[in-house]
């Protein structure tokens, strides 16, 4: 009966066998928000035969894999997603992995007590939309503009180094580097918590993969993510120990690290992706405009078919 109704209504209930279901490959780099998918794979909630995880070193590599066709989807930030679309590959967001709520922050050296004190200083940031966005928001909050500071482009893996070598006075960084810098005496002047729902990590799938034969696989990936998130909430200790090694933290560091991000559940996802006026669409529009201004996008994204809530679980 379940099978029948499943078939009839294409609700994607497992165990019914599909008509030549095809697997999908998702590229993802190491990041807190994407860890649930990796946990799901380790715990057996994610079937590697249906969804293959392609671990990459960075989001850039994930993007390249997506554009090359080596991956059918990728875990990316929203701005990275827009970049991919601008590059000519139509992708859609099927799930919001996490929302930065403080994990991204502006850490300044001791001595710079207020945002406004940044004037005339060197501020490091990743040359990504995230970095640009954070910097802009921070400057706005500071009441400064770009010309008041010396922007210094530095990638995340070099943040620690730059800090040590005093190449920057402040840096827009994120976990886990952020915690490290704070431990080094840095002061958090601004964080993403002040710009909610802006820095969003999503699972973006190529539009041509969002067809009937791949539908089950995509739904499986999404469902596995939520299963892992669910485990994290229900049994955080167990989840923490299990994620520790892959994340490269100690078990005790895992849970605190997760404090900086929100992992939206199924309901939250529906709110963000679905309905008549999805919340994420507003953020995407703002991001698109920002990226255009910073010349990170050639032109504004039409946002057409950007969000696709159809692959979220129907029962939760």
């Amino acid at each position, binding site marked *: *009966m*379940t099978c*029948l*109704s*499943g078939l*009839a*209504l294409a*609700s994607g209930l497992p165990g019914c066998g599909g008509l030549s279901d095809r697997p999908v490959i998702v590229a993802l780099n190491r990041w807190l928000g994407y860890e649930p998918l990796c946990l799901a794979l380790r715990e057996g909630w994610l079937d590697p035969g249906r969804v293959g995880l392609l671990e990459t070193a960075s989001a850039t590599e994930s993007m390249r894999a997506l554009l090359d066709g080596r991956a059918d989807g990728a875990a990316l930030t929203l701005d990275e997603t827009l970049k991919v679309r601008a590059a000519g590959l139509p992708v859609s967001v099927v799930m919001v992995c996490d929302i930065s709520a403080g994990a991204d922050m502006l850490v300044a050296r001791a001595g710079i007590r207020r945002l406004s004190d940044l004037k005339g200083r060197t501020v490091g940031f990743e040359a990504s939309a995230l970095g640009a966005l954070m910097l802009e928001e921070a400057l706005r909050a500071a009441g400064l503009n770009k010309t008041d500071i010396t922007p210094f482009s530095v990638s995340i893996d070099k943040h620690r180094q730059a800090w040590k070598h005093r190449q920057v006075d402040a840096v827009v960084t994120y976990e886990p580097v952020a915690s490290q810098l704070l431990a080094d005496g840095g002061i958090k002047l601004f964080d993403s918590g002040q710009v909610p729902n802006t820095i969003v990590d999503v699972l973006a799938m190529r539009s041509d993969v969002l067809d009937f034969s791949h539908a089950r696989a995509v739904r499986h990936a999404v469902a596995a993510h939520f299963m892992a998130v669910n485990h994290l909430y*229900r*049994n*955080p*200790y*167990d989840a*923490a*120990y*299990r994620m*520790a*090694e892959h994340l490269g933290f*100690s*078990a*005790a560091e895992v849970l605190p690290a997760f404090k900086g991000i929100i992992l939206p559940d199924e309901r939250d996802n529906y709110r963000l992706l679905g309905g008549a006026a999805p919340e994420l669409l507003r953020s995407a529009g703002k991001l698109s405009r920002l990226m255009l201004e910073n010349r990170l996008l050639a032109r504004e994204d039409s946002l057409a078919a950007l969000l696709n809530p159809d692959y979220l679980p*129907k*029962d939760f």
Partner: protein
Amino acid sequence: MPPTKTGHFGHALLKCLSVLQLCGVLACLPVAAAGESVKIGILAYRSKPQTLAQWQPLAVALKQALPDRDFAIETFDFDELALAVASRQVDFVLTNPGHYIQLSKRNGLSAPLATLALNDRDPERAIMAFGGVIFSRADDAGIDTILDLKGKTIAVTGIDSLSGYQLQAYEFQRGGGNLSQQAKLLQTGMPQDNVVDAVLNRRAEVGLVRTGVLEELAGEGKLDMRQIKIINRQPLPGYPHLLSTRLYPEWPFAAMPQTDENLARHVAAALFMLEENKAATRAIGIHGFGVPADYTAIADVLRDMRVPPYDVVPSFTLKDIWLRYQWPLLAALLIIGVFLLLTLNLLLVKRKLVVQRKLLLEQKQQLLDSETFLRTLIGTLPDLIWLKNADGVYLACNPRFEGFFGAEEQAIVGKTDYDFVDKASADSFRAHDMLAMQKDGPYLIEKWVTFADDGHKELLETLKIPMRDAAGQFIGVLGIGHDITERKQAEEKLSLAASVFTHAREGILITDVDGRIIDVNDTFTAITGYSREEALHRNPSMLKSDRQNKAFYAAMWADLKEKGEWSGELWNRRKNGQLYAEILTISAVRDAQGNTQHYVALFSDITPFKEYEQQLERIAHYDALTGLPNRILLADRLRLAMMQALRRGQKVAVVFLDLDGFKAVNDTFGHDMGDELLTALAGRMKQTLRESDTLARLGGDEFVAVLVDLPDTEACLPLLSRLLTAASQPVVYGESAMLVSASLGVSFYPQAEDIDADQLLRQADQAMYQAKMKGKNQYHLFEAD
């Protein structure tokens, strides 16, 4: 529970502390002001004394924090603790999470006030999670993975134990099995040391204990870790203990519902601060107490395992069912709805069908009856009935036809004539069929056929007619054979009769009962001269001649009426007035009741016969040459004359006449001339006699004359003279003249004595001789001497 440091010092300290505790308690007793001691019930998974000793420092620490209260530690096993909670013997509870949830559900323990924190490898860090361990003997090769637990004997403290059974069973269940059903459980009871013993002593193959226990026992020297191996080991490098299951939050510290809220709050605060009290924590062997964890994960496990307090199947309200299975239910309802509709439809259709069926059965019965009737009809008909298709294959036939072929209808249908009769007949049948089809109308033939069943023959009048159905489609050629043997015979008889009637040499006349002619044949016309039309409706009396008198016809009619027939001869008159003689037979034709309906008259024209008769008469009585009566007629005439003479009283003279010299003439002139002479003389002599006299020739040249109506003997003398004269005249024939004379002898009748004709003739003959003696050409009268 944390590993205990059981050194001398600790032991002694513990002893002192417990004594102090006791004193404190005793001391407190009479003083009511301080209140009762606060009892903390703690689950002992090692031995109770051991656990009590371990946790004594907590009571001390709490006393330090809350000086105006006394605290007492009490250790229990599962059931004892449950009882204690139920009977409100304790104020606070520290037990494993599963047990906590159970007690909480039953007795309403508070939400956890704090969660136990143990020391990590680095004592600065705390572990707030624990799990279960599965182990077996190291040398036991048959057990490597959790699935190998199937069928093995597993030592557990009890099935209520969370980390000593339930967590491991849950792991097993995740693999799809049911440990309690698929393995043998050996329940050892607390402490968990018993489990290790059981495995080491081979009473069980597998043992289930809490994380840390094995390390504790090893630390106490009671276990050589090399003796055992861990099953389903979880590779979590951050976790300091051996682990076979998932990790779950450590033990909760909870308050009883009756516990004073203030006390609970202060105790909670003291617990959180405990980690500052290094002495205490070190003594107990824990890190401290942390923020209460979320035990939902444990609840989930218990629920999945269906163990208390979730051993009751959760009431799945209808709403839950609806929400969970919305779409399948809708689909099912839809399908059921469709199914019901179809069933309803089916029932309706069924009802309709039943009615239809009934109707059809009736119709069928009617048809059967009709068919039976028709079949009987066709079977009863005395005619042969058959049906062949356009190819001459039999489609059906009736019982009479079966007799013809000598086979049953089943054997005939499907076959052709060629299978039953000779080729010639079959060919002719076929030819007739074709003709009928060509004509597309009835075709009649007569044929003699032999019936195969009994060999009798019949003349069949066969009607062949193409048979078409209501739509006008050609079905086949219908054949109907009617036995006309008798009719034919009757026809032939009739035809024969008619032929006889027409062609008979006899004239046939048929009248009705009143004598009116209703039919005549051609011979009638030939004889009577009247045509059929002239004769019809008239009476045969039109043919009457005068020859018969009334009496004759009266007798005829009388005979007819009486006997029904009459036959005889009569003379009738033809149309042209000519008389003719007929021999006539009249028969009366009677009907079944005996009433005369017709008269049939058969007659033949015997006029020629009559003449012939006369001729015969003549030949019988007259001399052929002269035409004179012969001897026979003479005798007759003489007799008559004699009778007449007697009656009239007259005399009769018999004259015997013999010609003289006749022989000489015969010899001279030949017999033919002699005949001529005789003929001439006969004529002459006859002329000399009277009408009533008779001159007869006896033969040769002998004649006899009978002279009648003589008054006396002398009266005949002139006649005699004339006779002599006539005989003596010469007869000229051609160029010959012949001359003879006659000698006459005469006798008379009646005489004195009776005398018959013969005697008379003899007398006359004698007299003639006398005449001849006397010199011929004279007469001599007989004298009776």
